[in-house]
């Protein structure tokens, strides 16, 4: 079916070339980083995980979001999702490839990455992360491909594929739960040491993934003559809305626990993220604008998805609302959650983090790679749909 990706109009090729440029720049920047070391990034002894791992954490959520399409369609027989489910599965593939790439570029010794398998340590959450991420990637490739092939041949998919489809559902929940467990099991980081991290991750994932799918579906309606249907988009908007509200509720609970209990370990990071933290006469607040934007964009997004006109009658405003929510959740999870955990450090000192240009270009290049893969996969899926409609 790959030949479907080789035929496209000039906008298609221009888009791929645009993404390819960023990928090439990123490759060059990565060579620089590989030769010098991770010192080319903005990470430091205190903030030892930065942009790469924060993008990884967010994208695992986006990948898990695909389950919000698979679950209603395959388990609850919600036929309205018939055309959109493949978008969710292929998004999961693309997001997972981005996740794995972000991990690889973040490693200090990437040539040794197979040590995780050769010298496995089952007590480490990274071990399980590796298993579930790769497992879910394999499941999505298998299910997406087999079912799309069956659709193309206009037959029912083989019975055995449903085992893997159903398996992908707990896997989707597990990839983000395991990623959350990376953080919430560490005794030294008070900001992360909370049972609500996993539910918060899942809520945020079930909002962010479908939000991206809605935006892409709206774009595809315009550029690729592929309409998933108003009912599907509306149902997705409902899911996104509830998930985003749940996420904000959980964030609110974190605020309550921190400020009502007045325990410094819980308060300090939230103070740093949302208000600025005063320490030794200096106010540290470089992430405050981002976190305030998170709240603002959340309100805007929720409003746009709640008001009937913007949600149902206007593709533009629906897309805008979903974009606002997507960016808002990216700020919350990518910037706020991961970077916040390192401030203050275990000795109550503060080091702030600023990514370097090299680091930003590598991150952009990996995002570009993800969208590149997504474009090609969607081109194949849409090509098949058009073929069988003809």
């Amino acid at each position, binding site marked *: 079916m790959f030949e479907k990706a080789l035929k496209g109009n000039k906008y298609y090729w221009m888009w791929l070339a645009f993404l390819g440029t960023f990928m090439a720049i990123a490759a060059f920047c990565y060579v620089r980083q590989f030769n010098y070391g991770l010192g080319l990034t903005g990470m430091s*002894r205190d903030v030892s995980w930065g942009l790469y791992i924060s993008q990884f954490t967010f994208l695992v959520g986006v990948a898990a979001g695909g389950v919000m399409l698979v679950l209603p369609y395959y388990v609850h027989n919600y036929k309205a999702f018939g055309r959109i489910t493949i978008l969710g599965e292929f998004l999961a593939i693309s997001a997972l490839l981005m996740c794995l790439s972000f991990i690889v570029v973040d*490693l200090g010794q990437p040539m040794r990455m197979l040590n995780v398998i050769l010298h496995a340590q089952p007590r480490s959450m990274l071990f399980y992360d590796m298993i579930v991420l790769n497992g879910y990637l394999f499941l999505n490739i298998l299910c997406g491909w087999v079912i799309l092939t069956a659709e193309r041949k206009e037959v029912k998919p083989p019975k055995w594929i*449903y085992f893997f489809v159903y398996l992908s559902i707990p896997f989707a929940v597990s990839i983000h739960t395991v990623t959350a467990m990376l953080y919430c099991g560490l005794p030294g980081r008070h900001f992360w040491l909370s049972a609500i991290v996993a539910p918060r991750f899942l809520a945020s994932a079930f909002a962010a993934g479908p939000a991206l799918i809605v935006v892409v579906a709206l774009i595809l309606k315009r550029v690729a003559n592929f309409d998933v249907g108003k009912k599907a988009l509306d149902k997705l908007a409902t899911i996104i809305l509830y998930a985003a509200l749940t996420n904000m509720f959980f964030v609110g609970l974190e605020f309550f626990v921190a400020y009502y209990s007045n325990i410094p370990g819980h308060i300090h990071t939230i103070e740093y993220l949302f208000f600025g933290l005063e320490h030794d006469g200096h106010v540290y607040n470089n992430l405050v604008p981002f976190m305030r934007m998170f709240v603002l964009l959340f309100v805007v997004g929720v409003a746009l998805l709640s008001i009937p006109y913007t949600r149902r009658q206007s593709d533009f405003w629906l897309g805008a609302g979903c974009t606002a929510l997507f960016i808002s959740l990216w700020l919350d999870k990518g910037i706020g959650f991961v970077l916040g955990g390192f401030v203050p450090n275990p*000795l109550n000192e503060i080091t702030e983090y600023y990514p370097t240009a090299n680091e930003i270009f590598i991150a952009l290049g990996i995002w570009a790679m993800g969208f590149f893969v997504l474009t090609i996969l969607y081109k194949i899926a849409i090509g098949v749909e058009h073929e069988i409609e003809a």
Partner: protein
Amino acid sequence: MSREGGYIQMDKKRRDFLKIAGATTLAGLGGPAVVERLVTGTSPAQARAGHGEHPVAHGAKTHTAASGHEDNNAPTGRRLGMVVDLRKLRKQPELMEKIVHACHAEHNVPHFPNKKDEIKWIWRTKFENAFPEHSDYYKDKLTIAGDVLVLCNHCDEPPCVKACPTRATFKNKDGIVAMDYHRCIGCRFCMAACPYGSRSFNWRDPRAGLDMNHINHRFPTRMRGVVEKCNFCAERVGLGKQPKCVEVCGSTKAMIFGDLNDPDSEIRQVLKDNFTIQRKPSAGTHPSVFYIV
């Protein structure tokens, strides 16, 4: 008719799904606990002894020559620990400088001007930074003025060892939390896990921060891309010597080192005779470093 058939089909599929989901969830919840039991061979509450590095088959004991008894409750093997007498060190800041310098020189720890790339195995810090769980309200003059020496605590239940996906950091048979630089993939999960901030990463080639004409030629440097930290001078202790920091203290006895599992050792005596505190006791890590304040 077909609608009904469709629903029955769907019910059956839903039932199958719930069966698979239930089984997977049980496996997922129970799995790590089962693996934990198998790997450590003991129940978690009793996992106090210094485990040998190689994987312990379930039911087997550690590979130490010292103890012969199979008793699960008594600690087996050596468990090295340290007592830092802050009363003595506070009066001699030059000694603290000497200690830091000696450790870093012995182990070829590089020095970089950019704080971002900093690597340190042992260093001086203020009381409220070393002991954030202790009150620093209305502290006495000496505590406010003096520094504290902090280093890796070589915990008995190290979160970094649990976090490492490749066993590159592990507890050796003497209770030292050791690093295997050959295996480290540089994921820095151990740095996130450490509640004490003891670990440093080689963000660049460490030799750029060393004067290669004045290094210790009997000890390697590290390479870029691996995590490092204090190793309780395992290479000296293995030959019966004291760690460098303890040696530098000499007769002042500002730092005492010994086997915590040996009831007749000097360090146990010091611990019996003096009130000591530890860093972040609520983290449950059971550090091996004690401080006399």
